């Protein structure tokens, strides 16, 4: 119950920020980046939940992005149709790829997704139709919807906020359902799950598909937001970024962790005015610090601080009682 209240409040804050900042395109952009980064991190974490570390998430975002750009530019589809379609295309490719590779152990899955991400990059760069080295320019804005014509950043802001809420709700429903429990059991002990009669491959494919669906969906948004699609956006380094958001935020909290991580890291480099070149360095340093000293992620920081304070207060009480005796 507390969680729902927190999320609800957070959403309201973001909603309000959209109105407050409606004439500050720069800050709107920053928060838009925070929001879609959270979506990517959340959907990636779902795949981690079943015990697989995917290094291909940016590639799936790319598959969605490129598909969407082409569907709208070349096939003349409406963005509103291309958006879900891109997600579905990404999910389909995920299933096709996942069918062979979700069977193997974690390290091999990791290697294959790494190679897959590199491969997607190579394919995009070498195929003019998908953008080539230059990329796809003049990707159209989303089509009119009522009075909203996406001429201002605020329109994109509300769109991505809406998409993020949908993502959160879907993920939440999945996690709290029987399917979600199966995911967790597969993640914890695959063999045990199998022995209880769970069709492990089927559920792994489902999780992988859902995760990649949202990656593709986000890709579609990004491409129409930036009006551009380029191979650099889908590199393995971007996949690493996504992981860092989720891990630094906290892997234990499937929805809250990624949001905390994405917002914290993005806002950090903005407020400290860290140049782009130093960003990767900062992210990596924070990641390594978190792994060594705060494994649960930033979201566990309040809890850790509380524990620390409780320990301190117990120490003092002991001293006092000793004195009164």
């Amino acid at each position: 119950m507390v969680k729902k209240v927190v999320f609800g409040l957070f959403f309201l804050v973001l909603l309000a920020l959209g109105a407050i900042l409606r004439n500050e395109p720069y800050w709107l952009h920053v928060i838009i980046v925070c929001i879609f980064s959270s979506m990517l991190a959340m959907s990636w974490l779902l795949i981690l939940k079943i015990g697989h570390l995917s290094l291909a998430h940016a590639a799936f975002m790319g598959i969605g992005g490129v598909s969407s750009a082409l569907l709208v530019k070349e096939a003349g589809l409406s963005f509103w149709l291309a958006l879900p379609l891109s997600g579905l295309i990404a999910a389909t490719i995920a299933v096709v790829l996942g069918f062979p590779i979700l069977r193997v152990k974690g390290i091999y899955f990791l290697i294959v997704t790494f190679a897959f991400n590199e491969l997607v990059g190579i394919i995009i760069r070498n195929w003019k139709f998908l953008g080539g080295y230059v990329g796809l320019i003049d990707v159209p804005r989303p089509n009119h919807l009522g009075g909203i014509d996406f001429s201002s950043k605020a329109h994109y802001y509300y769109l991505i906020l809406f998409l993020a809420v949908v993502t959160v709700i879907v993920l939440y429903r999945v996690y709290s359902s029987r399917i979600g429990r199966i995911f967790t059991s597969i993640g914890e002990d695959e063999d045990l799950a199998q022995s209880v009669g769970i069709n492990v491959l089927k559920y792994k494919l489902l999780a992988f598909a859902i995760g990649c669906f949202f990656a593709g969906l986000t890709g579609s948004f990004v491409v129409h937001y930036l009006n551009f699609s380029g191979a650099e956006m889908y590199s393995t380094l971007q996949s690493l970024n996504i992981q860092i958001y989720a891990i630094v935020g906290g892997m234990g909290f499937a929805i809250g962790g990624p949001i905390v991580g994405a917002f914290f890291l993005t806002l950090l480099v903005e407020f400290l005015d860290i140049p782009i070149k130093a960003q990767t360095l900062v992210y990596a340093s924070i990641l390594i610090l978190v792994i060594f000293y705060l494994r649960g992620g930033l979201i566990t920081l309040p809890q850790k601080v509380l524990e620390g304070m409780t320990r301190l207060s117990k120490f003092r009480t002991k001293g006092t009682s000793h004195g009164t005796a």
Partner: protein
Amino acid sequence: MPVAQIFLNALLLTMLYSLVSSGLTLVLGIARIVNFAHGSLYMLGAYVTYYVFQQVGLPFPVALVLAILGVGLFGVFLNRVLFRPLAGQFFAAIIVCLGLVFLVEGGAAIIFTEKERGMSAFVTGTVSIFGATLSTERIIVIITGALVMVGLFYFINRTKQGAAMRAVAQDAEAAALQGINFNYTSALAMGIGCGLAGLAGGLLAPVFGVVGPYMGQSIMFKAILVITLGGFGSVPGAFIAALLIGFLESFGFWYIGAWVSAVLFAIVIVILLIRPRGILGMEYTMRH
């Protein structure tokens, strides 16, 4: 089709891949960690060589030795500080390695700037073999690489330290019972493995002519393919796989250009499905 050129190129790639991958697989066998930052170490070796040879002007072999030592010692440092505390924790170790890539590349981008540096050859001229004109430099690099690989094989198979490394890779506990110092052996393996990456970077920098902070990425891709094909932890396996992939890539590039990477990728997937342990590798477990 200029067969001689493509053949030479294939040999060059073989040497490059086997140097880098042997190092990677050595580290994997001992520390049980796929060091994704290995490509970044290759890049560091290239930069050290660039600065010592091109900027300072010392002879090329000196630059190479410095690259090997520098990167090797850096590797030992990484092992001590990052890998050893995380022994046995798969996710944590992998994530740290991935973070390391960012760290090393980001650091290089800041210190050396992102501008790519041109590197001149350490020896110019060509030789004529069987009527084909081949670059002297490339031939020297190939021969050097081959000598190093031979030296590596000799070390691993015929010396006591090499045997110690093989023992630790096979079963660390049993090796310790035999009196093998795990910390020393793992530091040595790390040093040699990373030194090999540095050497490869230094050797190939003048050949490729360009040095940049992100040059390790494509190497990492190939190195991972090679050790997967060759088998985790196996240096001879890495060599054989490097040979296969080097030739496939060189000849394949002539016919289908960059799409050869797609073919390599497909091959790796097939290997993983049929025989995940690769040609000569061992089963991958996190614990020894």
